């Protein structure tokens, strides 16, 4: 049997570090939330900005079809960020640029996107295509033809340094 002898000071220090890592406290310095705590020592992270991607959309939706959604992300931080999921906001309403009749029955649904690996370089703005993320049912109103839809989402990301 092999016996490893460590001083109690070393063991206490090791345990304390392990506990901080387990709770994520040491990672707070790299979080894009910008809300650190007493353990943060690095540069304070800034929040990602989710911009208007409507200008980059390609018309591909019609009743019975699926299409792509566009996501525009700006990373103001001095480190790269990886987007890992894009999910529709709970209770969020999908709207269009075609007015009330279309908004009342867009027929559009968004499929939550998880397991993503969308990388945004430090200080960069990038637009991503989420293929197959949007579908349109036959309930879509006639006035929705040519519409641009805005879909409220939560974007989850993390430091990718």
């Amino acid at each position, binding site marked *: 049997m092999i016996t490893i002898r460590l001083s109690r000071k070393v063991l206490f220090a090791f345990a304390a570090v392990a506990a901080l890592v387990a709770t*994520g406290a040491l*990672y707070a310095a790299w979080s894009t939330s910008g809300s650190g705590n007493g353990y943060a020592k690095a540069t304070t992270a800034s929040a990602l900005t989710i911009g208007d991607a409507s200008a980059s*959309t390609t*018309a*591909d939706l019609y*009743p019975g079809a699926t299409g792509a959604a*566009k996501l525009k992300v700006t990373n103001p931080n001095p480190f790269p960020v990886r987007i890992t999921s894009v999910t529709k906001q709970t209770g969020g309403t999908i709207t269009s640029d075609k007015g009330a009749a279309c908004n009342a029955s867009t027929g559009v649904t968004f499929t939550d996107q998880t397991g993503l690996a969308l990388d945004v370089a430090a200080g960069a703005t990038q637009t991503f295509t*989420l293929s197959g993320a949007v579908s349109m049912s036959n309930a879509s109103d006639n006035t929705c033809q040519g519409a641009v839809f805005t879909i409220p*989402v939560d974007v989850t990301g993390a430091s990718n340094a």
Partner: protein
Amino acid sequence: MRAWVLLLVVAVAAAHPGGAAAAWSVARPGSVAAKAKALGAGNTPNASVTGRKVTVSWTASSFTTGGVVPGYVVRRYNVTTGVGTGALNGCSGTITGLTCTENSVPTGSWQYTVTPAAGNWRGTESGKSTVVVVI
């Protein structure tokens, strides 16, 4: 004994990297955008009569940004009154092909049109076909 407790804490922390990952990520509210196509215009159909059957055929229409439309709605117009109605008996509803035959057409002079369709969407109605006479 205390040393063994500390080693256990270390082992548990090392075995649960998910705890660190969960605190590492953050969700930001925003929006994504998507865009719909728009239906184009129907192409003027041909119509031919055999007895009380009228066969209507047309060429495919496209969305304004490209791609073939999925269906068509056929209408029949009374030449004398100009009143139109949805075609029946073989040409009713949304037709996914490029031809249909309407059976038991009432006596009279008729013209047909086709309109691109997808669900509740409708494109621009075509011009009217040549006149067919059902005796």
